């Protein structure tokens, strides 16, 4: 773990200024759940750490046009248990509660959740090559232990996945990321926030180095009655997703008016395919109609030695999630107290 200097930002402008000045060698810290881990692994070696926890960004409040605004510094726990989040965006509550542990959710913030780094074994082990850590050094995961790696949107440079649960729900909800930088504020649609690895796996999102996430806007959602987050993992809790699915349905009787499906554990970003989702529009919500949608979502998937199963598993998880969503949003207590895959 490197020694670094520490600054406590008193305002958003101060935070942005400090990050700018650090010239790529600065890191914001809030919950610290991912950064401190990576500092100890020597994956992150910043010269300066900028503490943003005292900024006034921890509120959850009504947003524009009937939406909800989640402060970047609101904790994952406060967000998941917020009554309005539970009522209007149940898939988000469930996704957050399916991730990490209660302790980590008490620490982790919404902004930080978006910026989580991959859990690929080779990224985490600095004795190994990794194009994401050391561009050009190679990707041993492609021919190595790649159970946790992706099957969609991978490249010959990187097959890492984005590890967040929360982001999968945010992608399905078409959240908007509000950021602030030296040039002022701007918004980034969620689908454009995370990037695919391509030839530059070291780039994971479209946030500029001196920008800070200030809030996440959730647009008004017609999906609250039929929202699920299905997570399949190697143990009942406290494990990253092998495959996860946020499935949101807007139903008219048993007919689908609109559908949103986002996939986790399979790609470098929360995976969506609006054109595939559109296949469901106007169809009845039945397994027969879900199967081709699941197949289409994984049409271009490519499996590797230890993770090829994710393609079949992913399809089945999509069908399951859509079936559960059709039945209706489960009570939070059921989800909280049970394995999310049930």
């Amino acid at each position: 773990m490197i020694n670094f200097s520490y600054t406590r930002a008193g305002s958003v402008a101060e935070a942005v200024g400090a990050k700018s000045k650090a010239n790529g060698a600065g890191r914001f810290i809030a919950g610290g759940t991912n950064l401190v881990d990576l500092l100890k692994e020597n994956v992150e070696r910043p010269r300066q750490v900028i503490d943003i926890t005292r900024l006034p960004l921890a509120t959850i409040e009504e947003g524009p046009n009937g939406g909800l605004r989640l402060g970047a510094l609101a904790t994952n726990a406060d967000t998941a248990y917020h009554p309005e989040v539970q009522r209007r965006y149940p898939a988000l509550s469930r996704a957050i509660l399916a991730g990490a542990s209660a302790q980590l959710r008490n620490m982790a913030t919404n902004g930080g959740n978006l910026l989580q780094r991959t859990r690929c074994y080779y990224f985490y082990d600095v004795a190994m090559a990794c194009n994401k850590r050391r561009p050009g050094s190679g990707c041993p995961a492609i021919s190595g232990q790649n159970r946790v790696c992706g099957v969609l949107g991978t490249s010959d440079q990187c097959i890492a996945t984005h590890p967040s649960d929360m982001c999968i729900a945010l992608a399905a909800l078409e959240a908007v990321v509000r950021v602030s930088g030296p040039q002022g504020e701007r918004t980034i649609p969620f689908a454009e926030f995370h990037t695919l690895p391509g030839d530059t796996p070291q780039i994971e999102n479209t946030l500029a180095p001196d920008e800070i996430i200030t809030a996440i806007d959730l647009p008004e959602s017609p999906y609250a009655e039929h929202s699920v987050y299905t997570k399949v993992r190697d143990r009942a809790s406290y494990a990253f997703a092998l495959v996860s699915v946020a499935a949101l349905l807007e139903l008219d009787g048993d007919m689908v008016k609109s559908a949103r499906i986002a996939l986790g554990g399979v790609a470098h970003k929360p995976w969506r395919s609006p054109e595939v989702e559109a296949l469901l529009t106007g169809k009845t919500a039945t397994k027969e109609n879900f199967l081709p949608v699941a197949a289409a979502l994984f049409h271009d998937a490519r499996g590797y030695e230890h993770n090829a199963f994710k393609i079949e598993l992913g399809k089945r998880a999509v069908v399951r999630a859509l079936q559960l969503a059709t039945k209706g949003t489960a009570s939070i207590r059921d989800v909280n107290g049970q394995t999310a895959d049930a």
Partner: protein
Amino acid sequence: MSALKSIFGKDVDTTSSTYLGKPTSRVDGPAKVTGGAKYAAEFNVPNLLYGYIVSSGAARGTIKSINTAEVEKVSGVVKVLTHENAPKTAYLDSSHRDQLASSGGAPFRPLYKAELEYSSQPVALVIADTFEAARYAASLVKVEYEVAPHETDLRANMGKAHPPTVTRTGYVSAPKKPRGNPEGAYDAAAHKVDVEYSQPIEFHMPMESYASTVAYGEDGKLTIYQKTQGVQNCQEYVCSVFGLSSSDVQVISPYMGGGFGSGLRPTYDIYLSVLAATALRRSVRVSMTRQQMFSFSHRPEAIQQFKLAANSDGMLDAVTHTAIEETSQNEEYLETVVNWSGLLYNCPNVMLSHQLVNLDLASPADMRAPGAVTGLYAYECAIDELAYEAKLDPLAFREKNYAEKDQNEGKLFSSKELREAYRQAAEKFGWSGRPLEPRSMKKGSDLIGWGMASGSWEASQGKAAAKLVLTPDGKLVVSSATSDIGTGTYTVMTMIAAEFSGVAIENVTFELGDSSMVYAPVEGGSWTVSSVGSAVKTVCQELRDRLFKLAGKVDGTPLGDTKIGDVTFANGAMHVTGNPVKNVTYAEALKAGKIDKLELDTTELPQLAKQATHALYSHSAVFAEVSVDEDLGTIHVTRVVSAIAGGRILNPKTARSQIMGAIVWGISMALEEEGMLDDKVGRFMNHNYAEYHIPVNADIHDIDVIFVPEHDEVVNPLGAKGLGEIGIVGVAAAVTNAIWHATGRRVRSLPVTLDKLL
């Protein structure tokens, strides 16, 4: 007493004992729940230096250079030790062999040579005045390797398998000659199974990482606070390796945050901390990181082949079992894997073989029920397959082929209540309602399956000593250099001492974990109660003899000329049995003998002549229920019932915990644990708690533990067989068999992860 009855069944007489057999809370419980219990890295001695280990990034080859220029500039750094500048230690390999080493091996020596033995081995130790400075500086060490080809893939190297060429205490070689004619019997049999089972490398992963705090005395004497299962083994090792006198080295370990076998042998942190402390003449602490906990020992990977056959009556007629395990290049790690298949069921035709493949990995080590857990996982699955081939209920098949004697050795069992264990566990579980055919039970959309297996573990006893001190205030302190790795040693020894000394339990203290105490063997193999407990019993009986004699010197002793057999020793006093009003207190006896402090010690040896005529084993019957979501492949173990025939149960409260924990281990082995080796780089890639999965609370549901009555006068003076290992043996098989019963799928490689069911 009603609570006791439910734990013990009907027949065990607990009324004749004051403490033994009664559920007793841990005497070290309050220390553990308040944070008062101190573990190895928590002895904060003054002016302590911290050593941070740098681990190798390559598996094989040579260290070309270690650049420490940047390291030494870091404020607070005192020294960087590497193979180039580390002080020399004992030259001969034999000096590095501890009590548990196999013969002929060359135990790993850290910072000894440029040649690498395995990936993640220590290559440098950075010593600084704070933990953080050492950690930071360690990140600046630049090591260059001349990489050479390595072999870490067991399956790819099976052609190199060879029988063990060395020996090791406790290892029982496979019988050299076959029993009967297994090939002929197999060919002629009505029902056959020819299968291969495999299991991956597993890691012990105790919650506490290995740590060694060496307090360097002004006189150069070392007090080493060490995470270990054997303080005296560590002390002997340090003296032998560093050429120190035993009077200059004291190893202390009052608490241990889990061992499971990983701390039977000295770990490399003690080597490094002593190396640094003696080189710098300073106090030093070296702790392993969690990642480094994957770098020194493991349960070996195993590939096992079976040819089993039964005749048309369902009688087991042929067993051929070959197990191939990996070991390191420098040592042959030996555990008894195949012999269990020759003794668990009656079978006239048996051939067993155990072989090793040397790979570029750290030496494997004993891990909870070493050998048995491996051999019986696979054997009990294969037996389940054979039972189904014969269209017999798996429990009925086992009962039919019940072994009344150990056919490997031709000996009767000293006791074996496995039949009763089957009966009680099956009844509790509701086994009789089980359909024979798989895929017969459902709950909602989930498939339900029931599986069972048997387990066995040896009930051994080693030489051990115990010492006691009785003072006139009536307090009794008993000690022995054993450990409590969570097993409840403090508590059970306190109970034994109270029981046999007649001192009330609240006035008894048991001390352990100090190499200067009287001899105890390493704490492992389920033999601590049997070994140390027997010594405690004997020394306390000697105390009564002494006190009885001293009582004769008390003026007007109420004992008169009563014989000792007619005297009751209780609550720190002696009285004629049946007449508790007139007594002689222990304090009065001491005073009469003008004794300020009564000290006694004794060394107890196993009664080999008596034991050698019998086969000494504990047994288990394990039943498991699983629920499988067939679409997603997810498996939940919803119920386990395990009945244990483990001799006399001295403390049912901690005994239950031990078995329950072992069942959690078995579930973990069945469904979760796997050291993921990347053979291309020769390195374990999931070397952390996030990716090397062990169960979390949400994975574990109902676990029922039954102790069946088992009386045994041969096994040791206490009649207790030990419980540390038996609880895990067979669990993975029961779970795997239940998965088959739920799904109709025989998954023959562990862990049974969901992808294997898709």
